[in-house]
């Protein structure tokens, strides 16, 4: 499953790095980080949503928020989501409200998809058992 995630571009190399950091000392590191990511990104996205409403055409503000979100995505390797963030920022740069709105929708969608996929992924890991979780999945 992981392979498919990579193939489809949901995740990138960074995710592997994060996984590499998991060891005996922190056996659930990846899951912790991912959970943290979704929590934080959810917050950020609602911020952006609010900003889109409350501050129309405030591209700077939107851009700033989106930058934060993009940073998060980068850190865990959520590449598709990251791409959408970038296109959002591009639209901001162009002053394209419509473009921003569209991009943001895409960001939201990617976010939801990724969450789903990763949840499945972790479930699989858990099902594989402690031994399976400790070792790197070869899927």
């Amino acid at each position, binding site marked *: 499953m992981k392979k498919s995630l990579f193939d489809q571009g949901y995740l990138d190399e960074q995710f592997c*790095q994060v996984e590499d950091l998991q060891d005996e000392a922190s056996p659930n590191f990846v899951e912790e980080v991912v959970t943290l*990511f979704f929590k*934080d990104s959810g917050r950020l996205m609602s911020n952006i949503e609010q900003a889109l409403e409350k501050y129309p055409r405030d591209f700077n503000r939107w851009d700033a928020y989106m930058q934060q979100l993009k940073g998060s995505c980068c850190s865990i390797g959520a590449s598709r989501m990251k791409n959408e963030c970038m296109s959002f920022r591009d639209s901001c740069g162009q002053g394209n409200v419509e473009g921003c709105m569209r991009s943001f929708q895409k960001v939201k969608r990617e976010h939801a998809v990724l969450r789903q996929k990763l949840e499945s992924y972790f479930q699989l890991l858990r099902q594989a058992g402690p031994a399976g979780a400790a070792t790197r999945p070869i899927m």
Partner: protein
Amino acid sequence: MRPDERKGVVAARRDQFPVGMRVLAVDDDPVCLKVLETLLLRCQYHVSTTNQAAIALKMLRENRDMFDLVISDVHMPDMDGFKLLELVGLEMDLPVIMLSVNGETKTVMKGITHGACDYLLKPVRIEELRNIWQHVVRRKFSTRDRANLDIYEECNKPSNADSDHAHGHVTCGSPDQSGRPSKKRKEYYSEEEDEGEEDNTQETDDPSAPKKPRVVWSVELHRKFVAAVNQLGIDKAVPKRILELMNVEKLTRENVASHLQKYRLYLKRLSAVASQQVSIVAALGGRDPFLHMGAFEGLQGYQAFTSSTSLSSFTPHGLINSPRNNPAAFGTQRVSASKSIQTVTGGHALNHSICDANKYHLSSPGNQQGNLGQGMATSLGQTQMQPKWIQEETDDLSTIFSGNGLANSGMSATLQGVTSSPLLPQELVECTQVKVGSQPSVLTPSVSSGHLEGTVGVSSSLLDPRVSQQTTIPLSEFSASGLPIHGLFNNSCATKLGATSSASTPVHPSDDLLVARDTKAGASSFGSTMLLPPDTEQKYLNFGGGNSFKHKFDERTADSLFDLKFVWSSGLSSQSASNIGAHHSISQRWNNSSSNNSNIGARMIGQPSSSASTVAPHAKSDFLISGDMLVPKNASDLSVPKLQSELSSSSCSFDGLLNSIIKVVRSYHPLVSLPQHPSL
């Protein structure tokens, strides 16, 4: 883990640097922060994290030594990453790595210009983090190197780890460098100057690093600074300790470092100026042209100085210069200086400018002239020092300076620059100018050389010749002004010249320069020490503080004049060493003393440079004159010596010097209200 426990662990790990390097990671993004932390831990660093810049700063401020490196995100909600970067660099001098998802060139450029030692893009890879320890090492090395490049090499052996990394510490005190090529110094000076000026709002030319918060060096603050420096000794005054002693909130080590650098430059300049002044005074033949010199560096009218501390600063300068020439000259110069100061009541502004000017002058030979002129102007104005007396000094000095002859003229020339007064200053300025170039040679014998060493690499040379001239000028100046000093100087000068140390009152041999030196300098132009604190205690001649002077004195036997100068810089310790009592006292005295004493003496003293030493001997006589000035009593003799001692004592305290100078001046000219010690 409790802090102490952790420290233990950390300490253990740090022995295997880069393993155990202590990193502080700051990022508002929790995901990123967590990943970063783990990556760093994987590199075997010790990591602390926070998602708020404010907390990070707090942690850093609480214990600067707890971290080796800071990694910070650029975009943070509570504080801009660049701002944090600046603050950390300023206050703690730690290497900071910027982190951002934004890799645009301009952003990266911004990071670099703000002082980041590296800029990483998110997502951060572990390979990149494995090498960040190089920044810590690099910074350590460069600090050490910078220290070694201390321009004031002569003054000191920089090796203070904590000295400003930015400016090689200049401990103005070691006379070793007299022969240093001025050119090198000049370059370095300007470089240092730039760096050092950053946080002095009052500094007019402040090209230093961008965006450093400006610290206003008020008189009060500067006083504290000077006191702290004196307490530590100009040689040992490192920003960290100074900061601790000063105990001022919101003052960073960086501010202090920068200020210290400037102060050192100032001291050097003072010595240069002092010598010049002396000659100028002599040349001027007893008028108060120096007073007119108030227009130092464009300062309008000394009048401003009189009350402003700035004058005080100048006087020392001028005196210092003169000391070279005549210790007595200094005295007179001082007197005139004080007078000038009084006249110039320019207030701080003037002082500052003058001081600054002097300071800067000292630092750069070219400038010197300006400074000298200024300093001299003040002093010269007052010092109607008899030309003759000055002559003596000058002779002494000139020999010493070998090339000083030029200096003298240079000095006057500089003075000229400063004031329109036809007085010697011009000569001095010229001399100084000339000297500047040829300085190395000059310094040697004359007191001025000694002085110069400390204060201004370049200027020193200039001073020498100038000093002699200056001394005369000041003397003459004094006479013109009617200062009794004038007479005194002559007499005293003579004596002083002969026996630098003897002249000054019991100048307590301040450890600093002067005392030691003075002996050598013989008639060191301790005149500069004139500014002895208003106390008519002749003892002031102890230029205690003038550590630098001391050095100088030794070198310059004849640099009595310089003594003055040094005294000024180093607190006029120059008094023929013997007198170099407590510079600090002088400077302090000055500081404390009312406007009269305003820091003229202090300033001079401030220049720990060798001038102090030279000044000592002469200082006595000079001080008498000047001292009187400051002190309404006519114990000109007293005053002069006192000044000297004062000067010496306040080795590093310009304030002291200025004060003493002012005092001296004041005594002679009751009307003259010495300016307050300008904050550097």
